[in-house]
């Protein structure tokens, strides 16, 4: 709750600071307020401080603020802070856009802490509506326009499907509260021979489809590569990390409510997960654009995370948290390098990376660390995240874990393209201008989480 409060009011302050100024850029202020939100949230999760009065304003059946919710809020605020710091010198960074990004983050907070489907719906919309605008931030660029319109149409369409599911669940279970919703179907399931009402089944399917659109899982991912490619890089990164993590947490909490009738949804969701893993990885293999490759890689990562949904028993949320952190750190690192390279060379395909290791060895090493973490090679955060995820999922669905390992093996094929161009090709282009302090911080964090994850996880959970 405190994160929501701090982020919202700093976004309002940012908008006022930018009033009547055409070129205003208070990125540092935005980043600091986000890190403060993250810090306060973390302190709340560790019971160092508490904001009971503030939290008592929100009815307990609307939003809940437990340890888990505080930790996910802290994670999301931290990621957005990093994104804003990394892209602070980029074009299209005005106070209005920083404000929109922070309002969107408020929606993500709501999605991780909802207890009532009204709050989930509002969270999704508060998250999405600023993003429709941010996707079209580059106003005269036709690709950005297209991304914006496509994202808007897909977002509104998936909201409609999601809402129909909500209405069916309301009719079937008689409640919109997360805690009450699951009771009736679980009870009916426990009584042998009582089939689930069509309304509840259809409701679960439709709501899941709405959420699968948001996480870009196959076959509801078709919008993602286009939108990711056309949007400004900062927005793409926001969509690939924050939106995905928040939607997965929301999805997980929703499915966890129906853990009593897991047979009704486990089968088809695991098939969609398998499809997502294969589709994402195979399609990424023959892309020439860097952003499209990263978009398909983020689809593949969504596929791995579907495994997490299938072992929803309410105790393993730290796996999702850790995977989200590892994936976001690597994404921020790789995306920001790719962004700078495409700005300095004017190319959008892999040839922008040509000769990077020779031009600027430091950035080359950071790229290696980021890409290895995305691919899940040992001594990187990504490896540990995948290791925990796969080893816990093994007991539940070994075949899906096998597919996940196959997918990871395929993914090395396209991650290797980065190395091929950075180390084996020559180029005359100028070296990119990047913030070395931040690159060092991100690389160090990835290696730290790779070398001794327990030092971090024990401190937090």
């Amino acid at each position, binding site marked *: 709750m405190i994160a929501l409060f701090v982020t919202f009011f700093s976004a309002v302050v940012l908008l006022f600071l930018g009033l009547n100024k055409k070129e205003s850029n208070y990125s540092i202020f935005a980043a600091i307020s986000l890190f403060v939100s993250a810090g306060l949230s973390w302190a709340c999760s560790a019971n160092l401080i508490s904001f009971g009065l503030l939290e008592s304003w929100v009815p307990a059946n609307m939003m809940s603020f437990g340890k888990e919710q505080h930790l996910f809020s802290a994670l999301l605020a931290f990621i957005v802070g990093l994104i804003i710091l990394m892209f602070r010198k980029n074009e299209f960074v005005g106070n209005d856009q920083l404000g929109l990004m922070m309002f969107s983050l408020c929606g993500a907070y709501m999605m991780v802490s909802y207890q009532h489907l009204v709050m989930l719906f509002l969270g999704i919309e508060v998250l999405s509506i600023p993003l429709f605008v941010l996707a079209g931030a580059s106003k005269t660029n036709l690709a950005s326009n297209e991304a914006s319109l496509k994202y808007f149409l897909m977002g509104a369409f998936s909201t409609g499907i999601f809402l129909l599911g909500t209405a069916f669940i309301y009719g079937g279970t008689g409640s919109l509260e997360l805690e009450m919703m699951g009771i009736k179907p679980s009870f009916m399931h426990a009584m042998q021979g009582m089939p689930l009402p069509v*309304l509840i089944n259809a409701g679960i399917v439709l709501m899941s489809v709405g959420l699968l659109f948001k996480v870009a899982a196959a076959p509801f991912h078709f919008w993602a590569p286009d939108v990711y490619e*056309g949007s400004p890089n900062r927005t793409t990164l926001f969509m690939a990390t924050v939106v995905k993590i928040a939607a997965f947490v929301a999805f997980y909490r929703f499915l966890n409510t129906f853990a009593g009738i897991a047979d009704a949804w486990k089968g088809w969701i695991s098939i969609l997960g398998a499809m997502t893993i294969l589709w994402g990885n195979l399609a990424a293999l023959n892309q020439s654009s860097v952003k499209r490759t990263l978009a398909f890689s983020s689809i593949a990562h969504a596929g791995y995370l579907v495994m997490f949904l299938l072992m929803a028993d309410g105790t393993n949320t730290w796996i999702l948290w850790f995977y989200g952190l590892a994936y976001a750190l690597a994404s921020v690192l790789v995306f920001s390098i790719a962004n700078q390279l495409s700005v300095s060379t004017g190319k959008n395909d892999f040839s922008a990376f040509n000769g990077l290791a020779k031009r600027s060895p430091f950035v080359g090493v950071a790229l290696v660390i980021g890409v290895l973490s995305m691919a899940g090679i040992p001594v990187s955060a990504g490896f540990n995240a995948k290791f925990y995820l796969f080893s816990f999922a093994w007991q539940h669905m070994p075949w899906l874990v096998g597919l996940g390992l196959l997918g990871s093996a395929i993914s090395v094929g396209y991650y290797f393209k980065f190395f091929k161009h950075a180390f084996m090709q020559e180029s005359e282009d100028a070296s990119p201008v990047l913030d070395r302090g931040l690159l060092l911080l991100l690389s160090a964090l990835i290696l730290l989480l790779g070398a001794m994850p327990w030092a971090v996880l024990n401190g937090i959970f």
Partner: protein
Amino acid sequence: MSILNIFNQVEISHYIYLSTVLFAIGLFGVLFRRNAIILLMCIELMLNAVNLLFTAFSSYMGDADGQIFVFFIMVVAAAEAAVGLAILVLVYRNTRKTDVSFLDQLKG
């Protein structure tokens, strides 16, 4: 006989069928029409079908939650339509078209 009784004589299943049909009309409209304005109207139709269903359930169960939800859906739909039309104006300025067939610039 009051008007409320007439409503209650219609079975809930009829409301479910009606809403589902309305929703399906909106859904197919989104899938098959090419004009962005029509797409927006079809999305509104989908949301209004949901509103109708929520109200019907709410009335049959004697629970106010569903009707409150409808207000939220209306507010959000209005905000969404505002942003959507703004995006459409942006696109129109650059392409002089409201047809979504220009949406094929980005290809892998």
